[in-house]
């Protein structure tokens, strides 16, 4: 196991009577892009929070390399190289793009006292260098001095991604990075993620855009009802009957729910949260005249 791998062992998270994440094992190896898919409510977000440290698991542990980081706060994890992006871009709206990135680049050490007393020159130029490099590599130089709060959604995503890179991550956790991006932006983005992984960063990608996930990842985990129901190469997971029945659209609109559902029910976990009963009449149905 490499120093940079992120792994989860037997993670469990319960809310009251509901088990949101049930005994999940997962490996996010360096240099690879790992995908995580699942219908709404399958427990992806909860698992993601357990990995980033926003929430604590009831059982199980999270390892970064050999180190147990289960009880570490999100900022401590970040200083050790585990960096996340958010579903809703989380930039600092009043700062310029460059300052947003600079915050990430210069906070791997904590000693604020030194700064307060005026020893702030140390490491500054290094941080600026990182910011400039990242801006250049993502071709964001044009908006370097723009105030983050004024940027359009597409740019926000990219800048948040750039900011994550400035924290020099060993592991990058991306939560729906392509939502809100249009087709061209998504295209650019997936190429970018691949480039980062090739530099040896471990990447976990959670997204609804199945096309993006299957196109770009090396390995996929599919979650249903809090459990991992399938894992492996994209092609294998795509072919998995459970995944097909609960998650992927099964064909063009007109033929939906017309028996295309493969045999074999969910192989584990409770009933999927969002899937209508297969084979039966459409779950959403409006008869003519109800709506005038």
């Amino acid at each position, binding site marked *: 196991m490499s120093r940079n791998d992120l792994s989860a062992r037997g993670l469990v998270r319960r809310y009251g009577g509901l088990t949101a994440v049930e005994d999940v094992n997962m490996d996010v190896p360096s240099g690879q892009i790992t995908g995580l898919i699942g219908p*709404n409510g399958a427990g992806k977000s909860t698992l993601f929070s357990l990995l980033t440290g926003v929430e604590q698991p009831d059982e199980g542990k999270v390892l970064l390399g050999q180190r147990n980081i289960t009880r570490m706060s999100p900022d401590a994890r970040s200083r050790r190289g585990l960096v996340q992006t958010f579903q809703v871009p989380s930039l600092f709206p009043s700062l310029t793009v460059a300052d947003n990135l600079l915050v990430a680049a210069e906070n791997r050490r904590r000693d604020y006292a030194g700064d307060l007393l005026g020893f702030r020159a140390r490491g500054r130029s290094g941080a600026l260098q990182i910011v400039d490099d990242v801006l250049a590599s993502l071709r964001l130089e044009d908006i370097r001095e723009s105030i983050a709060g004024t940027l*359009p959604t597409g740019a926000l995503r990219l800048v948040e991604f750039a900011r994550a890179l400035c924290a020099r991550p060993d592991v990058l956790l991306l939560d729906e990075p392509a939502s809100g991006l249009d*087709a*061209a932006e998504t295209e650019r983005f997936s190429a970018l993620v691949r480039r980062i992984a090739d530099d040896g960063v471990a990447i976990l990608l959670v997204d609804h855009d199945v096309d993006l996930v299957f196109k770009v990842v090396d390995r996929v985990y599919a979650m249903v009802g809090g459990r991992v129901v399938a894992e492996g190469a994209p092609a294998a997971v795509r072919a998995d009957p459970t995944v097909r029945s609960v998650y*992927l659209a099964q064909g063009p609109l007109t033929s939906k729910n017309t028996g295309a559902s493969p045999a074999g029910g969910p192989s584990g976990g409770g009933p999927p*949260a969002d899937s*209508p009963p297969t084979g039966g009449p459409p779950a*959403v149905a409006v008869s003519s005249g*109800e*709506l005038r």
Partner: protein
Amino acid sequence: MTANPAAIGDTHLAVDPNGAPTAEAGLPAVELRLENARAGYRTIEVLHGIDMAIPSGAVTALLGANGAGKSTTLRTIAGLIPLRGGSLTWRGEQITKMTTTNRAKRGLMLVPDERAVFATLSVRDNLQIIAEASGHPDITPALEAFPRLQERLSQRAGSMSGGERRMLALARALLARPSVLMVDELSLGLSPKVASELFAWLGTVADAGTTVILADQYTEEALALADMVYVLHRGEITFAGTPAELGASELLAASAS
């Protein structure tokens, strides 16, 4: 109560409320019209004078890249954003200055892209509120259309999954018996399967005679459903016509930034 004067399949003897005959027999009339509409946020103008005529009882799709002005158009029609210039007409009446509440009462119903349900309220209250506001305090039609909601009636809407919340949002709109149903980013954050189910449902809604306006990134699904397409680019309309007339170049323009 608002009722669509004609349903699809009937013979339409529609006359433009302004007096000009705009439709032949068998074709829907235009009741909702934006003329030279300009709107925006604070110091930024997003819509630079667009003209739009929404065919009644049909599906109109607004396409365009991020920031093209799709959401702004819908929010302007719903009254959330005031017009800075131009006019909005609904059934021959100038409603440019009308409040959001009154537009909703006249049957112009927007399902926004985010925060489309009352997260802290139960599913039942979510449905009840809109049913009462529209004067038909019976929520069974929504439960018949979306049986899944039946078992969640007393659950807080905010604790449901994204797909279920979307369903609830549409179910609410259904209870309002809208004349015009506007749906912003139907597919946002949904798994493809749920998204296509909801698109199909919208098709049946339009078949039942409701005017539907869709703004979506999911170009393919939206196009499959649409009768009329507007492509927006930076607050201007660059194409208006049927999906069949929409060429490859416009399609590319619609999806690229």
